[in-house]
């Protein structure tokens, strides 16, 4: 876990790399890597790589980055963890590669020497890296299959700059800050900015599961090497000879295997613990994997103490069952109010979430943790969201009426005018007929923050028009379903994993945890695990989450497994609404109406911040 950056002045007309700029980019990410820093420049001054380090594996100076191969022909700056680096190292050593360090970084260098860019297929973990190949005079950028680690780049046609954060690139001072309407429209539609867009025109995210080459003529088109949709299609097509019991055992083994891999570290690995199945099961599996001493942390709110909404007691029960060192960290409105400016500053791209992760990461950092396990991804993998039921249902019901030309638009317009007088009617209702008949449309309705026809009110008509054209939201969603999974579960899982989880949950976890120099690991977001679980969930989705809960040798208490998904809340919504600094939304009539969802107002204030 770290912060990476680089500049490649690839065009003959470009000025050489500005060392001071590279340092500004790098040092804007000090929180990502407070333990060390480094930079490397090519002799001809056309390439510079930089790194901020959070030491987790091989704590010695030898692990410092950017790291070069012995012959100096390869140099890498890397953020993340390669969980199977020991296995890869053994294979490489058997082929004659000599290692100088105990790091996963060095494995990247040798693996590239051995396999070229195809190396990414062998990596299990979360990663983003920039690797300079001096012989090819080319820079390889790569990002893990799910997009757990971020990687942004800005190409002005002369010079390529990359970094782990958008704000770091801006801090360099040479990237154009013109806004990207597609990023803003995406934010208003989804509540987070959908990759590859950002809110800045010149800055793009390297899509998850992709590589990108930059050589002397500039950037090539990004190449996707992994697709979640393809993984689901493969699982659907696979014939399994195993019976139910066999599959269940297979899942348990796969879960344990993932957790075991995610515990690789030279520092203690703790865990976020809520009262839900995902984090609880992971803590149980951490024990099964052999970790005796587990530090867990749960977030709680004074307002909820002793009330039904409080999840702290149940979390404490789970902690007691697995014998962890448990901490319940209380957050008050005063602390929230104090942290708010820091939160908005750390928020790399606008988002309507991430506040819980901010505080739980802060708590973990206070406990001295550098690494924590999170249950993120469980709902996407095991179908825990209501969307797994609602979206296919909606599509089935509306597929035929939605095909009648103009009916959807007609219904939307008439309902929209009704909604103006009846604010209690959900504004999304107006779009039901227009969008509900396809998976892409139904998903947009389910997850949408604002609806496309509302954007002009919040963003202004010109930004809305340009942004909708550039983003083309339905096509954007539809493209993720290529190849198209056959089952409804597969389709929703793909959309939840490639939109909500990738652009919202993983991004929020990254900035909110890195602001506290904490590495969050997500064993439920793992390609290897996915290939096992998808075999089951695409066939019998209904019992999937339960399987997760009963996977530890000592299963979770049944009240945890049986508890309905909703029930716990946080007072943060109320705090947000009360905060005097977050009242910009009052300027927009559409947001000032009673019963306007709080997330819409919060989104507007985030955008205005």
């Amino acid at each position, binding site marked *: 876990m770290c912060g990476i950056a680089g500049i490649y002045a690839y065009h003959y*007309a470009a*000025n050489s790399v500005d060392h001071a700029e590279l340092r500004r980019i790098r040092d804007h990410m000090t929180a990502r890597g407070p333990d060390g820093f480094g930079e490397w420049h090519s002799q001809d001054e056309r390439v510079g790589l930089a790194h901020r380090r959070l030491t987790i594996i091989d704590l010695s100076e030898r692990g410092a980055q950017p790291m070069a191969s012995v012959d100096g022909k390869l140099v890498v700056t890397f953020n993340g963890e390669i969980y199977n680096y020991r296995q890869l190292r053994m294979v490489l050593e058997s082929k004659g590669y000599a290692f100088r360090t105990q790091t996963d970084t060095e494995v990247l260098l040798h693996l590239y020497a051995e396999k070229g860019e195809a190396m990414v297929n062998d990596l299990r973990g979360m990663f983003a890296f920039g690797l300079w190949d001096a012989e090819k005079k080319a820079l390889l950028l790569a990002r893990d299959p799910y997009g757990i680690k971020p990687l942004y780049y800005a*190409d002005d046609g002369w010079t390529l700059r990359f970094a782990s954060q958008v704000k770091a690139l801006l801090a360099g001072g040479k990237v*154009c800050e013109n806004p990207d309407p597609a990023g803003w429209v995406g934010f208003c539609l989804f509540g987070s900015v959908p990759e590859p867009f950002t809110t800045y025109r010149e800055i793009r995210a390297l899509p998850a599961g992709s590589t990108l080459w930059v050589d002397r*003529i500039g950037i090539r088109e990004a190449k996707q090497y992994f697709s979640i949709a393809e993984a689901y299609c493969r699982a659907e097509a696979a014939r399994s000879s195993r019976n139910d019991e066999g599959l269940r055992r297979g899942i348990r083994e796969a879960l344990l295997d993932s957790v075991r891999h995610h515990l690789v570290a030279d520092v203690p690995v703790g865990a976020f613990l809520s009262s839900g199945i995902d984090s609880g099961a992971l803590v149980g599996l951490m024990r099964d994997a052999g970790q005796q001493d587990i530090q867990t942390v749960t977030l709680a709110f004074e307002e909820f103490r002793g009330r039904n909404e409080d999840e702290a007691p149940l979390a404490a029960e789970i902690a007691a069952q697995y014998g962890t060192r448990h901490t319940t960290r209380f957050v008050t409105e005063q602390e929230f109010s104090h942290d708010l400016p820091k939160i908005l500053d750390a928020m790399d791209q606008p988002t309507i979430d991430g506040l819980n992760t901010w505080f739980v990461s802060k708590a973990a950092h206070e406990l001295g943790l550098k690494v924590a396990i999170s249950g993120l991804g469980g709902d996407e993998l095991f179908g825990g969201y209501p969307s797994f039921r609602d979206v296919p249902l909606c599509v089935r019901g509306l597929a035929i009426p939605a095909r009648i030309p103009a009916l959807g638009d007609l219904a939307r317009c008439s309902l929209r005018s009704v909604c103006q007088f009846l604010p209690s009617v959900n504004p999304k209702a107006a779009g039901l007929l227009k969008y509900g008949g396809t998976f892409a449309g139904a998903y947009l309705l389910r997850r949408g923050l604002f609806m496309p026809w509302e954007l002009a009110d919040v963003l202004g008509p010109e930004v809305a028009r*340009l942004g909708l054209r550039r983003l083309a939201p339905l096509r954007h969603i539809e493209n993720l379903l290529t190849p198209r999974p056959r089952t409804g579960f597969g389709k929703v899982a793909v959309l939840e994993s490639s939109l909500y989880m990738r652009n919202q949950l993983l991004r929020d976890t990254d900035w909110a945890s890195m602001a506290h120099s904490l590495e969050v690991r997500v064993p439920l977001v793992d390609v290897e695990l996915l290939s096992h679980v998808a075999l089951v969930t695409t066939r019998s989705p209904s019992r999937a989450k339960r399987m997760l809960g009963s996977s530890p040798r000592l299963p979770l208490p049944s009240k945890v497994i049986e508890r309905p998904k909703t029930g716990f809340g946080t007072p943060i919504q109320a705090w947000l609404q009360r905060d005097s600094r977050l009242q910009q939304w009052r300027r927009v009539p559409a947001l000032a109406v009673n019963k306007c969802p709080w997330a819409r107002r919060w989104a507007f204030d985030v955008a205005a911040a």
Partner: protein
Amino acid sequence: MDERSLRVLALVTDAFGGYGGIAQYNRDFLSALAVCEGVGEVIVLPCAGARPKSALPPGVQQLYPVKSKVGYSIAALGIAQRYRPIDIVFCGHLFMAPLAAIIAKLLGASLWVQVHGNDAWEELSGLYRKSAEMAALITSVSRYTRRRMLEWVRIEPARVKILPNTVEPRFQPGPKPDYLLDRHALHGKKVLLTVSRLAAAERYKGHDRVIRVLPRVLAEHPETMYLIAGDGDDRPRLKVLAEEVRVAQNVRFLGLVSDEELADHFRIADVFVMPSTGEGFGIVFLEAMASGIRVIGGNKDGSLDALGDGVFGTAINPENGDELASAICTALNSAPANTGGAIRFKASAFTEHLEALVWSNFIAGH
């Protein structure tokens, strides 16, 4: 023709026998393209310009210009048929993009669109946008033009590359030529120079900005003369302005300078200044730099590319009079510049880059 070599149909405004910046660019481009490895033949159809005076470079065949719009389209379609197979349709100006896109589509050829300056800055109608979006490659003269175009064209940014202007070798440093010092009575004077058209439609060039700050420059350097080379319908306004700010004595309108005398005119100057807000690239900056004189330009447009982001010349906010006046005074106090900027944009670098673009876009993996 070699089986592997590419045949290119180039639809351009003018090239060999043409006049002005775009024709110059097209000549450099087409000459270099024709000698690229893997390129067999370049067939050029211009819609303006005269017949070339000198022989065409090897590999280039330029057809007679067809000046009417409809005639041009018919001719282009006919030529496309006659010269089949065509591998690449090169579109030298965005206003030809729909025609080029149709021909490329009909022939199954790749479309390559070139953009220069304000032709690509503002959003054009859907027809032009969709045509540009079909391009396998768009080359832009500057980062600024690329950025502006990407604001309204929905295309992978990786497909939009930069191929800057280049500078002719006749622009070289040298002593101030006596015949021009005599003609313009410039002995013992410090000389500011701007070279451009004086079109009322192109007031962004910034002659008026220079005239307005001239009193401040004269206060520090009373011996300064401002030479304005080039002509056009904006000249009367600028003359009146010079009188209004009482610097008419120090401003000389040279009119159109012949091609033969242009390089010498750069040499009689101490500072080239053009605080423009509308340059696609600004080849004059390169010509001035190649002549070894100090250069001042704006930081709001393609000028920044020619100025190397301020490394080779001074890049100022063109709309800020204080910045402009102080940049001029500083430049007048400084020693002559080195020609590093112009060297960076030398023709050989252009050719090498073009070759790499052709190779990676149309040969490797195809």
